[in-house]
């Protein structure tokens, strides 16, 4: 079931077209990566889904209806820029946001305590946010997004500023929410997290969609490369787009050469290997190197958008 449907969405700020004809959907239980560099339109899109800003054109449906504040109880949101009331205690902060999302106080309090226990912060429940470390405050903020057990969980650059331990905790929470049946959408420009978590992803560049699909499909977007050591000239193999030969280091005999082959998009490396085998081509090495998501990202949105 589609929890979020976006259709031909556009948003213009004066002369800047921040989001341009964007269409995608996210289903229940799916983890959806929303990738793009700075200024790609990720935050603007999420704000439109939250009804914080309104689209110039196009439609958004959250659980089948146009977004408005009545959908608050079904949405969890962690903004990129995080902050809480420094004078409020951790548990009161979580309860406050829970109540704004329509929970009754006793339920909000019990769920808040469960979350704090899960985040190893139960003993700091009554501590003021101002007295907590930045990492602790970020976990409290994550709890405010999860308090209502949302059907749509949106996380805007959730990993930024988190130490490795808390990054692991956040990954677990994302997986837990998806297992519960929530549609999880998170924006990031750090590819490793997307590679580990996402069922599907969307690549955005300057407001326009450059790619949408699974990680495998994304990788298939770039040609695969093969490294082979053989005596035969491999440049004429079917499906090979280019071939570069070099002397094979560490291999005795001058006739053995190392070939670096770039396959035509869509070519199955297994089929090339099978062809070599059927032709009796002797191989001393056969490595298949698949494009990383980072490579795909660089290819599709440009190297200037990449953040290591």
């Amino acid at each position, binding site marked *: 079931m589609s929890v979020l449907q976006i259709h031909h969405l556009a948003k213009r700020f004066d002369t800047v077209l921040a989001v341009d004809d964007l269409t995608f959907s996210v289903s229940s239980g799916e983890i959806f990566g929303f990738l793009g560099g700075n200024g790609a339109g990720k935050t603007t899109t999420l704000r439109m889904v939250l009804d914080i*800003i309104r689209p110039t054109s196009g439609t958004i449906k959250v659980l089948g209806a146009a977004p*408005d*504040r009545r959908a608050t109880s079904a*949405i969890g949101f962690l*903004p990129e820029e995080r902050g809480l*009331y420094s004078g409020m205690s951790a548990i009161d902060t979580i309860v406050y946001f829970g109540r704004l999302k329509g929970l009754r106080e006793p339920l909000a309090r019990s769920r808040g305590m469960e979350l704090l226990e899960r985040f190893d912060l139960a003993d700091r429940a009554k501590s003021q946010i101002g007295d907590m470390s930045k990492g602790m405050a970020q976990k409290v903020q994550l709890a*405010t997004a999860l308090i209502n057990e949302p059907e749509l969980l949106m996380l805007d650059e959730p990993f930024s500023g988190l130490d490795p331990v808390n990054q692991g905790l956040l990954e677990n929470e994302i997986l837990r929410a998806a297992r519960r049946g929530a549609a999880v959408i998170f924006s990031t420009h750090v590819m490793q997290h997307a590679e580990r978590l996402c069922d599907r992803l969307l690549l955005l560049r300057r407001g326009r969609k450059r790619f949408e699909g699974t990680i495998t499909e994304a990788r298939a977007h770039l040609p695969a490369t093969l490294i082979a050591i053989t005596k035969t000239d491999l440049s004429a193999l079917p499906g090979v787009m280019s071939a570069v030969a070099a002397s094979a280091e560490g291999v005795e005999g001058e006739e053995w050469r190392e070939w670096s082959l770039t396959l035509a998009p869509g070519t199955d490396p297994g089929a090339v290997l099978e062809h070599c085998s059927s032709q009796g081509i002797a191989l001393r090495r056969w490595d298949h190197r698949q494009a990383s998501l980072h490579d795909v990202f660089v290819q599709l949105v440009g190297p200037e958008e990449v953040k290591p």
Partner: protein
Amino acid sequence: MNSANILLVARREMAQILKMRSFWLTLLILPVALALGPLLGETLADTDPTRVTVVDRSGAGAANALEARFTADETRYLLRELSRYAQRYDLQGADRAALWTQRDRWYTPQDLAAFEASGGIEAALAKIETVRPDGVPRFEIPNHDYRFAPPPPALLSAQGDAFAAAARGLFADDPDDTNPEIIVIIPEAYPADGKIGIYSADDVRGSFISTLQEVLTADLRTRLLAEDGVTGERATLVQTIAPTITIDSPPPGGGAREVLLVRSAVPIALSYILMMSLILSGSWMLQGSVEERSNKLIESLLACISPEELMYGKLLGGLVVGLMMLSVWVGCAGVAAYATQGAIADMIRPALEPISSPGIIVAITFFFLAGYIMVSAIFVAIGSMADSMSEAQGFMMPVLFAILLPITFLLQAVIAGNDGIMVQIFTWVPLWTPFAVLARLGSGIEAWELVGSGVVLGLAIVVELVLVGRLFRASLLATGQKPTLAKVMQRLRRTPDAG
């Protein structure tokens, strides 16, 4: 809009303000001042009469004339106060023929003599006591300003510098507070030598010197006329003749100048309190808004509630805190009035008269609340645009000037009984309407003005909330950009972009 969300935001705002030390300090300042004021007043007030001695070396009787004049002035004051007391509490039945049951008038020397001949203040109070109902306070006899005493022996024979030294010695060495505090020396050659000396332990009141001068000038002129052949009796008559003036002023609590001040006391105080509590709760609201922006809280909040719910919640929270503060202050004032009774209670009773009708209470409530919303909305708008308190203060200064300066002039004008064009203008300009109407309730405001200005104020608040709502919504997420006037105007005009 979801009213539950508005209440939640209001509750959080209130909780945040109630946690501030500055709130409790401010809340307690007025009660503490009310408690300490009477105590300090009683402690610091100098109720003892100033001791005066006149060394009259001339033997011309000037000393007696002086003492008689001061005594007459004090008796005149006593009669005036007694007369007002009798009118205020409707006690004329004690003796309808007595001077002090008649309307205010200028008491002639003959009147004063007649008063003393009839037994003076003691006899008057005895008569009053026969008709004084329960609950009416007793008349408090005013303190004497001066008490005349014969010169101490040390002064009688001393001359020149020795006299001055003796006078200073008396001032310096006075462990029992019995020595004179003012010494007047009339020279032996008076009236030929008209140099009168005054030695004083402290500053001499201007009124004392002018009375002294009047008495001695009259004496000198009388003597001069006598030298020119005018009989002593005629000369004295020339000096003392004066028209008999009757004063027809309403009794206390009924109209005109003194009455205006008494009746205006509570409404003007309300106007001041509105101004004070607005500035205080407004600045607390501002702190809350700035914290939300500087702590990057806004986006999290707007994911749950609409900008309008946030804005109205803030306004409601600030309003409740302001009313809470007002209730505590009014309650403390009531307790203070009840506890002190006497003069303060006497003043408060007529002062409460203009606000005792249900219609006026409704009007006060409306203008107080409307004033709160009118000004608080401006503070909330400023809070939505500022990333820091210093930036907010930059916006606040011109706004505070625009509100406070005119109101200061307005209140002074109302206190002075001025109902001119300036007061009229203030009544109809919505930013100042609540203050002007509240202040004018005591001095009298036409019903059509009350209703008309209320309607204009109500409409202005609706327009203001629409505009501030747009500004609030457009400014919330625009962090890092200092809004120029042009940008602010653009945000005010633009139809909602955000949800």
